[in-house]
C-alpha cells in the first residue's frame, strides 16, 4: 500500500531536478567516492601491505631454507660450548635476484623477529621481501660495509624497532656460509641524501676499511621520510652452520627454518 502510493511521488521528485542539480549531485558523489578511495589507500598502506609482505617473506624464507639443507639446532638445555674459535668469517655470496640470508633480531618485537635478506633495494625487493642489500656495498665477512635497507613502517614494518638497539644488542645473519654475529655500536639520524653512510668506512671517502660492519638504514621518524635512521653494528663472531645457531637465536632459527 505504502510502496504503491510513494513510487509515483518519488519519480515526480526526480523529474523536478534541474540539469544543474543533477550535475551537482553527480559531482558530489564523485568527490565522496574520491574521499573514500583515499581513505582506503591509507588502509592499504598501513595494514594490507604488512599482510602481503609477511606472505612473500615467508615464501622466500622457505625457499632459502630448502637450499640451506638440514639446520642443526641443539636440543633444549644443551649448554653452549664457549670460546670456540671457528676462524675468520668467509665472504658470503650474493647475486642479483637472490634471497641469500635470514637476519635475526633477538631484541626486536616481543620475542625477537627474523626477516629474509635479498639482493637490491628497489621497491620490488623491500616492499615485499623484507630486507634489501645495497649492491655496491661489501658482502658479509668482507672488510668494509655490508649495508641493508628495510621499511620502518608499512610493508612488514621490518625495522620498526631499529631505534631501540642498544649496547650489547646483537643482530645475526644466517647464510649458506654460516652464522654471522653483529654487535651494535652506534646509531645516527641523517638526511635522506646522505649516501656516504654506505661507504666502506662510513662518511670517509677513500679510507681503507679495517673492520667488517653492518649498516642498517630505514625511515625516520616513523610514518615519515623526512630523515633516515642508520644503525651500525660490527661483525664480532662467525660460526659454520654445522655448529648450530648461537644460543640467543636458537628459538628464532627453529621458527624460521621449520
Amino acid at each position, binding site marked *: 500500500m505504502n510502496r504503491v502510493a510513494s513510487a509515483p511521488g518519488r519519480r515526480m521528485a526526480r523529474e523536478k531536478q534541474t540539469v544543474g542539480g543533477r550535475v551537482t549531485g553527480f559531482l558530489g558523489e*564523485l568527490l565522496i567516492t574520491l574521499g573514500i578511495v583515499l581513505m582506503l589507500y591509507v588502509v592499504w598502506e598501513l595494514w*594490507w601491505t604488512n599482510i*602481503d609482505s609477511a606472505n612473500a617473506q615467508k615464501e622466500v624464507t622457505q625457499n632459502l631454507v630448502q637450499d640451506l639443507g638440514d639446520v642443526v639446532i641443539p636440543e633444549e638445555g644443551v649448554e653452549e660450548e664457549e670460546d670456540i674459535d671457528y676462524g675468520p668469517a668467509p665472504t658470503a655470496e650474493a647475486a642479483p635476484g637472490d634471497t641469500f640470508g635470514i637476519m635475526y633480531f633477538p631484541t626486536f618485537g616481543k620475542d625477537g623477529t627474523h626477516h629474509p635478506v635479498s639482493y637490491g*633495494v628497489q621497491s620490488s625487493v623491500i616492499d615485499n621481501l623484507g630486507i634489501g642489500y645495497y649492491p*655496491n656495498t661489501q658482502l658479509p665477512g668482507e672488510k668494509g660495509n655490508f649495508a641493508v635497507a628495510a*621499511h*620502518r613502517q608499512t610493508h612488514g614494518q621490518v625495522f620498526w624497532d631499529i631505534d631501540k638497539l642498544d649496547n650489547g644488542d646483537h643482530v645475526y645473519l644466517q647464510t649458506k656460509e654460516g652464522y654471522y654475529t653483529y654487535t651494535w655500536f652506534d646509531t645516527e639520524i641523517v638526511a635522506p641524501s646522505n649516501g656516504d653512510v654506505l661507504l666502506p668506512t662510513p662518511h670517509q671517502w677513500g679510507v681503507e676499511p679495517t673492520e667488517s660492519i653492518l649498516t642498517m638504514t630505514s625511515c625516520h621518524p616513523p610514518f615519515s621520510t623526512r630523515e633516515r635512521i642508520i644503525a651500525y653494528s660490527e661483525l664480532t663472531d662467525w660460526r659454520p652452520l654445522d655448529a648450530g645457531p648461537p644460543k640467543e637465536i636458537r628459538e628464532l632459527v627453529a621458527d624460521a627454518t621449520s
Partner: protein
Amino acid sequence: MYAWIFRNLPGPVWLRIIEALILIAAVVLLLMVYVFPWLSQYSPFTDSTIGQITL
C-alpha cells in the same frame, strides 16, 4: 549515479542490497590488489633507502 545503479540492479530490494554489497567488495578488492600497489610506486611517503652513491 549510485541511485541509478541501485535502481537498475535486477531483483527485489533485498537482493539488490546484496548485489550492491558484492559490487562494493569487488571494487575494494580491485583497488587493494591491483590499483594501490601500482599507485604506490609514485608515492613518496615510504621510501626508506638512502641516496645511492656510485662507487
